[in-house]
């Protein structure tokens, strides 16, 4: 996607690349996410996310010359006004909070990225009032943030830290399988929600993984 910059930071261009990759990942997994949502929700998560990220891509045409924070804000606003459902406000908030945390930055260090993801996750938790174990996207995001912070403390390299957070998000996503949902639409199913992956946790894992994959050679 992006060329490999010489510094060990994430450029605006890298962020754009990540968003483009994720939009493609969502398009590819549209049916999968919707099937997950059909089992314990209302069969629209894939369509919702795909509609949102198609709108994001269209909007990003105009922001190539803006900065990281502006881009992320644009993403958040586009998601809020096109996705709807639970995912719209939640992913919208995620990107708006990340945007605020990135204010003024022209490139992101590993610790910038950790701070942003932390703020983004806090935003999601505040908006949706879900905690870990409620079988939501929070179950993928929180471990990703924790893994990032741990990686920094352990002195891992940027690529290693990204891989750690992606793996943690994956485990978090998988941890939703046996859970009984307490938040969102799946909670109406009560015990019948157990035995299915949470669609939002899955799309959140894919978001973290897209960052790790896209930025693998960018530092």
């Amino acid at each position, binding site marked *: 996607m992006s060329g490999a910059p010489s510094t060990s930071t994430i450029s605006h261009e890298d962020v754009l690349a990540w968003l483009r990759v994720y939009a493609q990942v969502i398009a590819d997994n549209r049916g999968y996410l*919707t099937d997950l949502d*059909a*089992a*314990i*929700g*209302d*069969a*629209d998560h894939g*369509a*919702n996310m795909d*509609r949102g990220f198609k709108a994001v891509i269209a909007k990003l045409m105009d922001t190539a010359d803006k900065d990281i924070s502006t881009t992320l804000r644009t993403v958040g606003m586009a998601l*809020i*006004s*096109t*996705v*709807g*459902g*639970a*995912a*719209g*406000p*939640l992913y919208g908030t995620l990107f708006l909070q990340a945007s605020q945390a990135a204010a003024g930055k022209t490139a992101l260090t590993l610790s910038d990225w950790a701070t942003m993801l932390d703020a983004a996750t806090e935003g999601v938790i505040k*908006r*949706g009032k879900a905690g870990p174990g409620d079988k939501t996207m929070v179950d993928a995001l929180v471990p990703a943030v924790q893994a990032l912070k741990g990686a920094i403390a352990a002195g891992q390299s940027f690529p290693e830290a990204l891989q750690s957070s992606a793996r943690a998000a994956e485990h978090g996503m998988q941890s939703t399988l046996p859970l009984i949902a*307490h*938040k*969102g*639409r799946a*909670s*109406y*199913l*009560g015990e*019948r929600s157990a035995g299915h992956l949470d669609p939002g946790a899955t799309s959140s894992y894919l978001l973290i993984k897209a960052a790790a994959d896209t930025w693998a050679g960018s530092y």
Partner: protein
Amino acid sequence: MKKLINQPDDVVRESLEGFAAAFSGMIRLHVDPVYIVRADAPAKGKVGVLSGGGSGHEPMHGGFVGYGMLDAACPGAIFTSPTPDQMQEATRAINGGVGVLHIIKNYTGDIMNFEMAADLARDEGIEVASVIIDDDVAVKDSLYTAGRRGVGTTVLAEKITGAAAQQGRPLAEVADVCQRVNGYGRSMGVALTSCTVPHVGHATFELPEDQMEIGIGIHGEPGRARTALQPADQVTEMLMEPVIADLPFKTGDEVLLFVNGMGGTPLPELHIVYRKALQIATQHGLKVTRSLVGPYMTSLEMAGCSVTLLKLNAELTALWDAPVCTPGMRWGM
């Protein structure tokens, strides 16, 4: 998937265009962002009443826009809450200077999107009140869950609240009426078949010939339990008993009995359910003084129904009886 549609992605837009053309005397369709609004909005000095939610529940909510009911409705994608910008603009369009009430069904997505919209509208200086409808007794209510879903009572709340607003009552009172309807209404539903979301192309769930889903919502989602298909009278009991027990409705209560079709169930079956529901209500000493039977809040072509009981008093009865003129509900004018 067998549907009278063109492209799945065009279903909502094209159906709204057809709807707006067919009912151009009562409503107007606004696009970008999308909302349906009373042809004569805003009504100066009248509280505006707004609702909205995913599409696929027609005639709700767009079909309830008009005199004496909603001032505007925001349709989302199928089974997907609309977005804050729709609600914000619709709120602005129906603000007659004395504020706007948002009637919100209790779904995480709807709540969050309406919340954002209300914040935006308040930033513009529009007074906004919100009432959340959560009447589905099939769902256990708890602080630690998303709470009960908003189902059948929504239709009744929109009618009764709309009538209160039409009388010129102030926002706090209109909101209070709506809140009381929610407090007095209880519902439960059953599905005999799944529905098919157009962009998915196949049924949301498979239900064998001899099974039904009890305690369903209105989004084609599975219910609380799958059980053997029963005769209508037993099914009606399975719906009515938890509804009656929940408020609880008591001997001597005057009630409105609403049997709602989920879309694919023909009227005669709804009348068979109504017949038994009336018997059960009467056995419990309830006085059914008002009735509504029909597909008012649907899940696409799902076969099934829900029953709603609403406790009435003189005020709510008068508001129910007040004239209403919308595509989906009309009397007195």
